[in-house]
């Protein structure tokens, strides 16, 4: 009974997008890299950098849009660093990823002190965040209206990105080349396109998307920056990318699952479940989905040969 109340609680519905958006945006960026054949597990660092730059941009311009732009640029800058060390100098992608995560953690904290002269957190009325966008009519639909209406502009951007990326990968020249770089880079090179150049573009786009994800964290979900505020969300995005091998629609559903279960796990704490178990929920849910999916696939494959 109490569980049902929880699920039908409108504030539960409204909170899902706030959990989903940063993960989804970062995961979409990660998906581009994955499809382009760049094993980028630095999404955590990209998100963090984006979150910081968003606050920076918003604070100095007074506009969340400038904040989002700054976040994208910052993400792209990290993408460039990644490209330099991984693509050009040939460093191992995992090592480079982890170094970039360290770099982002250090740089944001350092800049926080250098620019705002605070340690740990920066919260100021001058940081203008994304307000809720009300969608007339839709907001009156029960439950779904709560999810779809009243969210930050970035949520809608993220939603839009899913079909866009799908079409982009399927039909756009660059999308085609990105897929080729990820699948058979040698063949792409033989066709006259340097795969590393395509991978660089993917990294930059990944940086921009992760930057937006960071902006959602710091100037949409809240209006402040706190050291290390990405808090593991980039890793969740990495898991989502690996799970779906970078396909946009499955990615969307996994991000939704993560966000919804995470959001739900908060609420079941109210039912007296130990925090350790509620923290475990998104991962267990994913494992269960994975096992169920592969079981279903195996069954279908058996059916096919029969």
């Amino acid at each position, binding site marked *: 009974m109490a569980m049902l109340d929880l699920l039908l609680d409108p504030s539960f519905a409204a909170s899902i997008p706030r959990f989903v958006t940063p993960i989804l945006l970062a995961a979409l960026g990660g998906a581009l890299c994955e499809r382009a054949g760049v094993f980028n597990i630095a999404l955590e660092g990209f998100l963090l950098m984006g979150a910081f730059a968003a606050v920076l941009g918003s604070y100095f311009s007074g506009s969340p849009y400038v904040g989002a732009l700054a976040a994208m640029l910052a993400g792209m800058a990290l993408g460039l660093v990644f490209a330099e060390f991984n693509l050009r100098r040939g460093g191992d992608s995992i090592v480079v990823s982890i170094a970039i995560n360290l770099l982002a953690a250090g740089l944001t904290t350092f800049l926080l002190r250098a620019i705002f002269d605070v340690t740990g957190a920066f*919260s100021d009325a001058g940081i203008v965040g994304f307000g809720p966008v009300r969608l007339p009519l839709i907001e009156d639909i029960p439950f779904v209206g709560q999810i779809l209406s009243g969210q930050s502009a970035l949520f809608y951007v993220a939603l839009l990105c899913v079909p866009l990326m799908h079409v982009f990968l399927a039909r756009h020249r660059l999308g085609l080349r990105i897929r080729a770089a990820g699948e058979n880079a040698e063949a792409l090179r033989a066709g006259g396109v340097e795969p590393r150049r395509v991978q660089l573009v993917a990294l930059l786009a990944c940086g921009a998307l992760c930057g937006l994800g960071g902006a959602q964290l710091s100037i949409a979900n809240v209006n402040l920056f706190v050291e290390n505020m990405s808090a*593991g969300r980039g890793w969740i995005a990495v898991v989502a990318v690996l799970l779906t091998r970078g396909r946009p629609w499955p990615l969307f559903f996994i991000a939704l699952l993560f966000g919804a279960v995470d959001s739900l796990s908060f609420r079941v704490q109210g039912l007296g479940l130990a*925090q350790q178990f509620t923290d475990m929920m998104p991962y267990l849910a994913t494992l269960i989905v994975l096992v169920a999916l592969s079981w279903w696939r195996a069954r279908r494959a058996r059916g096919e040969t029969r």
Partner: protein
Amino acid sequence: ADKLFVYVSPDALGVNAFLKMGQTGIEAAGEKYGADVETYESRTAAERLENVNAAVNEGADIVVLLGFEFNDIIREVAPTAPDIQFLMIDQCIDDRPENVHCAVFREYEASYLMGVAAAMMTETGKVGVVGALDIPFLHRYTDGYAQGVKSVKPDASVDIRWVGGESPFADPVRAKEQAVAMNAAGADLIFTATAGGDFGVFEAAKEKDFKAFSVDVNQCPNAPGHIVDMTLKHVDTAMVQAIGEILEGGKQLTVSLGLKEGGMSAMALEEDNIAGSGCLIADHPEVAAKMREVAASIEDGSLKLEDPMFAK
């Protein structure tokens, strides 16, 4: 300077107002007693040990350890360095050597006062508290608060939740969601002890228009009109005082600081500062009066509170 004081923090200072106050305290002590001071930030259990060893290795005169994470380490290291004085803040160990001194705070006393205020001000009969992580230390806040609430309104419900996640002490996003969820479930006064997450709770308070309590230092200016009061923990003054006593040759000092000793406080109790604090308590003299009354009974011992940290 011929003396060296080292402050070893249990975690990164970051957003932790309490740990930052430790740094203020050591600097004040250094100034006052003419010593060089250094701060060693630890981030993990292993680094705490390494840092304490390093402080010994660097030949510190006094090593100040903030937080209860250092018990094992002190037990091991202090006997091997009899010339070095160790000051533990927030915790004490049994059977300690002469060169180990303790200063502990009774946070739950001030938290209890927050509970009292919350119970008096709630309109829904539901209040909430968010802690960073379900660890014993934070129960000094959450449980103290809950007891305070029950003492005024036994039928009020207290929702206790934790931020959790990957970085519980620095996740304003999750902290905000917790506050929003509790508010949606009816809680109209929410106490936050979430370190970096506090800002998230304040955001939620502004957005959903509920009221909040916080910890350690005056945070009212961060969310004007939404923060009622907070537990004040005067680590810095306690540190200066304890170091002074150690320098005078005190052995095995134990200082327990609560409301009575002025180590813990609340804005409501600081009548000089209350007007300019920006806290809502300034507009609720009747609540403040009740808090002072309860504080007095705690101070004179007529109201006895258990330390929730050691409750099973």
